């Protein structure tokens, strides 16, 4: 499979220079690197600029409601666990509307990948304050500057028992590709929060702003100490880092735990979609009622 084959007839409608292009390319490169079969791969999009991505990746797609990518993705995975299932949405989608689903997807450990295009602003609805906006962020909905603290998606999902928690940066295509590849390979719920500049509506968290702060973490020495992704407390500590001195990117936390679908005895005989309905019978269940 080539990158070109992953394009559809439609072209992305994002603004020129949008961070979404980096994520889109990274996702496609990861699929190529994984040699994924587009016929058994499903992308689920939410609502927002990022949520439209299933229209622009030539796999199967489900473009649903605002904030509801994870339930749809969970249903798809359980109906046919042979499928590779990836949900994508923005910060408003996942951290506002969909937060309840996110926390439960973490503890459920359903074997899907969740990519959050986190641009710290509402793009498609024209620049309102997002749940990850920095304090003081000025927009049409907070002209006085945001008075709420931002969601910390990494600390939150680590605490919620996600088994793969990572952050990457849209402008670093190689890193995006690498992290998404690892996330899709992971057996269990993998969340990748992606720092994504919005060139039209976020004039605070720009490419320059991120470039001067982002630094990589990993098992090797990167100048800011080695990071052991199996150490939950170390992961939490890194997740708390968000300042002018640095914003870490990389795999924060990874743990081996039986996935929800992997531990479900109902799925052992094969994907439910292959069940022969003509053999469904309720005789024994009826007998119990006599």
């Amino acid at each position: 499979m080539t990158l070109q084959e992953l394009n559809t007839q439609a072209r992305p409608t994002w603004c020129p220079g949008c961070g979404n292009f980096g994520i889109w390319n990274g996702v496609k490169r990861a699929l190529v690197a994984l040699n994924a079969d587009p016929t058994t791969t499903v992308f689920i999009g939410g609502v927002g600029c990022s949520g439209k991505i299933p229209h622009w990746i030539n796999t199967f797609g489900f473009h649903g409601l605002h904030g509801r990518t994870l339930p749809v993705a969970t249903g798809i995975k359980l109906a046919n666990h042979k499928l590779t299932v990836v949900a994508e949405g923005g910060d408003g989608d996942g951290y506002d509307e969909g937060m309840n689903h996110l926390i439960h997807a973490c503890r459920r450990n359903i074997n899907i990948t969740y990519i959050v295009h986190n641009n710290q602003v509402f793009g498609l609805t024209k620049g309102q304050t997002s749940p990850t906006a920095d304090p003081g962020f000025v927009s049409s909905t907070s002209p006085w500057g945001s008075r709420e603290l931002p969601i910390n998606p990494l600390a939150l999902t680590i605490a919620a028992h996600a088994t793969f928690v990572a952050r990457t940066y849209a402008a670093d295509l190689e890193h995006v590709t690498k992290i998404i590849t690892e996330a899709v390979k992971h057996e269990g719920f993998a969340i990748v929060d992606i720092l994504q500049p919005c060139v039209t509506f976020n004039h605070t968290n720009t490419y320059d702003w991120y470039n001067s702060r982002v630094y990589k973490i990993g098992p090797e020495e990167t100048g800011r100490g080695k990071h052991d992704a199996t150490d939950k407390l170390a992961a939490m500590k890194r997740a708390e880092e968000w300042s002018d001195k640095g914003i870490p990117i990389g795999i924060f936390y990874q743990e081996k735990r039986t996935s929800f679908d992997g531990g479900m005895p109902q799925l052992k005989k094969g994907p439910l979609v292959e069940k022969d309905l003509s053999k469904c019978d309720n005789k024994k269940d009826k007998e119990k009622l006599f």
Partner: protein
Amino acid sequence: MVNPEVNRLSLKIAGPAGEGIMSAGHVFAKCCSRGGLYVVTENERPSLIRGGHNQFMIRAEAEPINSHINLVNVLLALDKQSALMHASELSYKGAIIYDKEDFELTPDMLGRHDLRLIGVPMRTIIKDIGAGKIVENAIAMGAAFGLLGYDLDILLKILKEEYGKHPEALAADIKAAQAGYAAARECTMQEPFTNTLKKVKAPKRMLINGLQAFNLGALKAGVSFLSQYPMTPSSGVIAGLAKAAEAHHIAIVQTEDEISSLNMALGASYAGVRALTATSGGGYALMNEALSLAGVTETGVVICLVSRGNPGTGLPTRTEQSDLMFVLNAGHGEFPHIVIAPSDPASAYVEAQRAFNLADKYQTPVTVLFDRHNAETYHTYEALPADLPIERGERFMVDEDVHGARRYEWNDNNGVSKVVIPSNKNGRFVASGNEHDPTGLMNDERETRTRMMQKRMRKLGAARAELPGPVLDGEEDADVTFVSWGSTLPIIKDARKFLEEKNISSSHLHLTYMNPFHGEEVAAILRKVKNPVLIENNATGQLGQLIRMHTGINIDRRMLQFDGWPFAPEEIAHRAEVGRW
């Protein structure tokens, strides 16, 4: 002395919640069924775990019956309050079985001098067998058997079946039942009771309620996925199917909320399996957005809605038919939504299967609308109705090559395009909540939009044509014609029997398919009948509104009840008799 009535009984067990009233009631109902009688139950309980007041009513007769009745022959009162509350419901010379060592009952106290007060020394019995208060139910049931002259072996056998896994508890229950039986036999030595039960030869019958029947139908239909957030009174769906999940290969997810439930079921259906969710009114409210998404993405799904008393948290454990208009108008925008309201377990069994067929064939949401009354009321059947064949409609099988077929291909006939699922070769498409073209790509051009809306809405007409049309049961010129939907069917059937005894003729138009609606057929029937009367468990006569909307016909005589309780057949018959609506 009048001869006792044989095999015609109405018995009520009442007491504080947490005392095992529901399970005792179920055991007694099973005993009646096992003895060859037809059984119908009715239970009422408040929304709490301990305390409050529970009641379980069992009506059992040798001839077929459809509904509970108000009149009670025997009351098992597990506390004083129960005796005082229900004494007025008792038939002439009816009986109260109670613990005379717990409280005293006198005719003056009850305002009834005809009643048989069967005081059983329960505390002594409990002490003698060295058990806990928990065996009170068994003592009371044993006493009822003694009073009714019913074969105690039936009770002992059912107790063994139900509690055989706990030998110690079972042994205590058996001793308790025997002691209760002996105590009541003694009381009836001088004067036999007004009612007796005798084992009759009859085919074995199952004792089944509406949700159990719905679950059995869903199993036969091959349900493979259930996502549900527990909500009274719909939790019987997940509890029932979870037990069957492994044997039948059904993925069960207890979700974080009802928004998740329906979205998850949509995901499962999109991936190719028969998917179900269940809830009550409040949860259904949360599902509205996803319902609309199911419509536009043409994703078939079955939603089981068990209504309770509304609005708000309302009456969580009580019954009401107040969600009809809500369901018919649920979801933003316009999309085809099939709504079916089963009446009794037999119809629940068939309609569950039909719902899955319709969801697959028309690729759109199907709501099966129960209310607490028909979800929880037990009936007896030798056999459930015949199964419907599984019809999955036009769809590609797993891994099949679609050879360029477009998921949302135009269809000017019935609006249905062939379903493509992930894994289909050359079938990649997006199921989009945005308006889209036949390939699924977002498209808001005026012509595409108009044609897509027409394509989707066309499905309703096709579905209407295949649904069984309304039938008037009885004569057009009957003195009264009842018009109803859902859970009231069995109650009205028995009300009509009572009217027949009084030489009042009646007929009945009962509707099951609420959308698509058979407007013309309903109008044709209503134009012919003499005296239509609307019977509904809601405050605004919602079926009446629906009929008027579709036919222009206004039914101005109506009997509405919205106190959280089902109608009783006697009440309906009485109103028809006096002719006041």
